[in-house]
């Protein structure tokens, strides 16, 4: 495929289950080599989207294009996409090697030995090839599942919450490895997650989903700094809602003296000051009774409960949603 068109395109994808609509007109385009995140809370339709692309379920309406070809009517084994399942779904009766060879054998590829060796090297599983899935660690299982899919050189690799089954300490490390791996193989990754930090740090493009629809598509900075809806704003991070505008805690400043003219400010009373290591989290109450959270530098000194302070922010840091009214 030499053209620069999207490798994967969804057009108005809709999926109905008895009694509810899981997907409602989802459209997106993934450029070749992208690390694309589908981000949303559970039940937002992100996993359904993945299953429709893989071909496990048929869409109710809409089209799926892979490399420019409509693949709606192809069976899963006829689509050049591959899935890394949330629980990895490694075949328990086959060794790591058996799992990695499985797809190659089904597709009748030659050069089995070399390709298997290369991909095991790529995911650093060399030497574990004769182990069974039950005999390797969680991180190794995840890499075996990746290897099993990557060895087929799919047009798009679908990853369903690939990090959620790992223990939290391992997660950050694996995140970095995954990003590096994607750059090396150059395959388009479409991954589903409910963790906004994961989506922001891994992907170069994020589609935020809510109730079966895509709320916003953009680069990580776009969706975080310029959210189009209140949902996107609050799903991607904490927000203080002040006078109809949203202000992120790290953009909410706090001072003992009245701030300079030209900034927006509100008087408040400090309720609590929590030491978070890299910053201080100050909870303050406005005259209206609303609680506002501000994150300030530890170097600016602490605040004590009961203190009268001024909360202020720059107009440029306000998140506004004129479209929502």
């Amino acid at each position: 495929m030499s053209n620069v068109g999207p490798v994967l395109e969804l057009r108005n994808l809709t999926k109905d289950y008895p009694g509810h609509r899981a997907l409602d007109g989802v459209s997106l385009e993934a450029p070749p080599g992208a690390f694309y995140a589908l981000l949303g809370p559970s039940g937002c339709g992100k996993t359904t989207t993945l299953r429709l692309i893989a071909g496990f379920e048929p869409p109710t309406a809409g089209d799926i294009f892979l490399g420019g070809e409509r693949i709606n009517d192809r069976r899963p084994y006829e689509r050049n996409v591959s899935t890394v399942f949330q629980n990895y779904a490694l075949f328990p009766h086959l060794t790591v090697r058996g799992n990695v060879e499985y797809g190659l054998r089904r597709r009748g590829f030659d050069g089995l030995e070399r390709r298997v060796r290369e991909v095991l090297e790529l995911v650093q599983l060399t030497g574990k090839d004769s182990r069974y899935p039950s005999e390797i660690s969680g991180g190794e299982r995840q890499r075996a599942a990746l290897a099993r899919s990557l060895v087929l050189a799919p047009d798009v690799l679908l990853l369903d919450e690939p990090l959620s089954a790992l223990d939290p300490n391992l997660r950050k490390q694996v995140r970095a490895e995954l990003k590096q791996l994607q750059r090396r193989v150059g395959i388009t990754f479409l991954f589903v997650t409910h963790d906004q930090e994961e989506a922001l740090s891994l992907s170069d493009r994020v589609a935020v989903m809510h109730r079966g629809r895509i709320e916003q598509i953009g680069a990580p900075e776009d969706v975080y700094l310029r959210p189009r809806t209140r949902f996107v704003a609050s799903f991607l991070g904490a927000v203080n809602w002040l006078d109809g505008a949203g202000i992120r805690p790290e953009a909410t400043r706090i001072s003992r003296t009245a701030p300079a003219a030209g900034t927006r400010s509100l008087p408040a009373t400090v309720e609590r000051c929590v030491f978070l290591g890299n910053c201080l989290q100050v909870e303050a109450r406005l005259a209206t009774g609303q609680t506002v959270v501000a994150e300030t530098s530890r170097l600016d000194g602490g605040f004590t409960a009961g203190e009268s302070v001024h909360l202020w922010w720059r107009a440029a840091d306000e998140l506004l949603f004129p479209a929502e009214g």
Partner: protein
Amino acid sequence: MKRLRRAFLAPAWAVIGALFLGPLALVGLYSFLTRGAYGGLGQPWTLENYTRLLDPLYGAILVRSFLMAGAATAVCLLLAFPVALWIARAGPRRNLYLQLVIIPFWTSFLVRTYAWMFLLRDTGLFNTALQALGLIDEPLPLLYTPGAVLLGLVYGFLPFMVLPVYAALERIDRNLLEASADLGARPWATLTRIVIPLSAPGIRAGAVLVFIPCLGAYLTPDLLGGGKQIMIGNLIQNQFTTARDWPFGSAVSLALMLAAMALLVLFARRGAKELL
């Protein structure tokens, strides 16, 4: 504590001892005795009952029993696997279908076997229906054939294959089947490479549960085979009734039991735990 445990286990041991181990010991004892003048038990102690088993006449019965039990097991597996697979994928109605599999047990096996006699005999349902349709002139000889015995055994023991195979299939993670298709496997490859290997424990359990009782079957060959194609079970029964040769009957019983146990041990190598 230990004493208490023993006290609670005592009833179970008493039942096992009185109803299982005791009779078994008796049968073992009888098998080394000689047939009495009027059919009872007599002296001297002997091994003759066992050497008699080597007679080609009995060898043929033994071979026929193994073949019949093997065939019944194979047919049961072929029939039960698709049914079990279908039930395992039936969603919320699974329990209903499982109940249906078990329903035949609500009636005595004897009554159900008699029912087959009524269906298969010359004036039975099948023959009269085929004649009424003009497909045949003379009734087909259905009853009192090896086929009738096989049919009866398969019919009787099919649920014992369906249930363990179902249990094994039901445990297979759906994601594995999706993963297989995702990796390029057509349905047949998924069946042979993933589903069947992963249901092997259930297949083994079902095979044992069908094969062993079929091997010792007595009622089915007697009623549906008409006593023409006798199996080990009939041989044993004959020795205890018509032939009044208890020692030989005991020897055959023990030989059958040992053969069955040998088979079980063979299977146990590949995980008898699955049976329990």
